[in-house]
């Protein structure tokens, strides 16, 4: 299994609330109060009806792998990571989010595999949301 680096994300005015919540082990999503759309990635306006009337909620942290790749040799911070997986996970709430799949042999990763969120502390006041095969 690969050991991945935990680079701090680029925290901005638009995403500060999301990243602050990851420090408490919470994966938050936004929902539009006007049209019920679940938003991804965090932002001020609903991208379906463009209202600013959106609220934040704690997501389930569950999903399935929509697609993935095994990067055989990483670069920069990931250069010593060994083979690792980047994936789109389709969350139970709808959005497909880019992430890493961890805590499993990379060769066992499959499209459609159920996964659950885990958090890896960046040491910068937030944590990266990654996903591992879901417990049965």
């Amino acid at each position, binding site marked *: 299994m690969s050991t991945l680096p935990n680079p701090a994300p680029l*925290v901005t005015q638009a995403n500060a609330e999301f990243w602050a919540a990851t420090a408490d082990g919470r994966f938050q999503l936004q929902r539009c109060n006007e049209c019920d759309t679940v938003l991804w990635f965090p932002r001020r306006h609903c991208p379906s009806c463009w209202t600013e009337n959106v609220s934040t909620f704690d997501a389930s942290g569950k999903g399935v792998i929509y697609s*993935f790749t*095994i990067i*055989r040799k990483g670069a920069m911070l990931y250069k010593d990571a060994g083979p690792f997986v980047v994936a789109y996970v389709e969350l139970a709430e709808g959005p*497909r989010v880019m992430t890493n799949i961890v805590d499993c042999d990379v060769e066992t990763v499959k499209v459609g595999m159920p996964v659950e969120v885990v958090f890896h502390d960046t040491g910068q006041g937030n944590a990266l949301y990654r996903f591992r095969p879901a417990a049965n």
Partner: protein
Amino acid sequence: MSIRGAAYIAGIYEHPGRDLPDKTVWDIHIDVALGALADAGLAMEDVDALFCDGTAGFGVLTLADYFNINPTYVDSTETGGSSYLAHVGHAAAAIAAGKCHVALVTLAGKPKSGWQGPSFSPGPEAAFEQVWGMMGAPHSYALAAQRHMYEFGTTSAQLAEIKVAASIHAQYNPNAFLQKVVTVEEVLNSPMVADPLHRLDCCVVTDGGGALVIVSPEIAKKLGKTNAKILGHGEAVKHTNNGRIDLTHTGAVWSGPKAFAEAGVTVKDINYASIYDSFTITVLQTIEDLGFCEKGKGGTFVADGGLVAPFGKLPFNTDGGGLCNNHPSNRGGITKVIEAVRQLRGEAHPAVQVPNPQIALAHGTGGSLGSRHGSVTLILGQEDA
């Protein structure tokens, strides 16, 4: 208003170099500009419209200054490797509107000899895409390939057929970066970069550039260069759709129908196609999305020499494409247009020249299939097309 027949591509030039450590990107911009203008029979002082991507310094300001010309119509549309096809469409529209008469499009870059290219300021998505170890285009395109395989049963051997066809063409191009014909087995046995893409599923990394000169019908007639009439253009941005990205198709599903409708032709009329080939999967998805075959059947379409010129079902990328010939500045759009014009002129290598082609298609894909990209489709034809 339509651009059908409103403008012609009168000048083309592809820099012959693939490794240019002794030239600056600005030298290359001038080299290719002069080359395309000479091909058209025009001079730098004839240019009244200038087009370049967002990588050329401060865009048209930098280039107009360095070329020392005074264009009165400019456009720095930046859609990655598809930018130059967009420039052709925009130039044709500007010419149709009477805004300009001689438009110059240039591209130059030196990724092979170490020039890093531009760094764009991070967008709002950066925090959610740049921490996972995705370091290059192969990683992103691999996500699209994996999903296409899952939904449609596409195989690595089918993707490899695309590289094989490109390599068959490249053997006739003395400037091609890779001139050796490869087999499906060689593609499959090349090192895995990002599953399911092998090293030979990827395009080459080359220095170089290219240029195009687009002119009004009046000027084309004077120059005697009327065999690359611009018939249709369509462009689109395919993006992540609020976190609902569909990795199985490209923006060609939108740019293609617009270009075909404007040109008044269908896929059956296309005699030759330049299909953007950053990776084998880019070609496969684009062929499906343009309607050359049913969605999901691209693997079958490309098998058994379907893309091999001159007699395959869809002769493609007869210069060897980005997969074998050239991908200057990590952007293959301008060479797509150049080879389509060569085909229409009958100037492709005799071994891969399609007999008397009437209508050619060029398609660009810039950015990433795994996140967001620009798709641009051009349809070009002979004078009476």
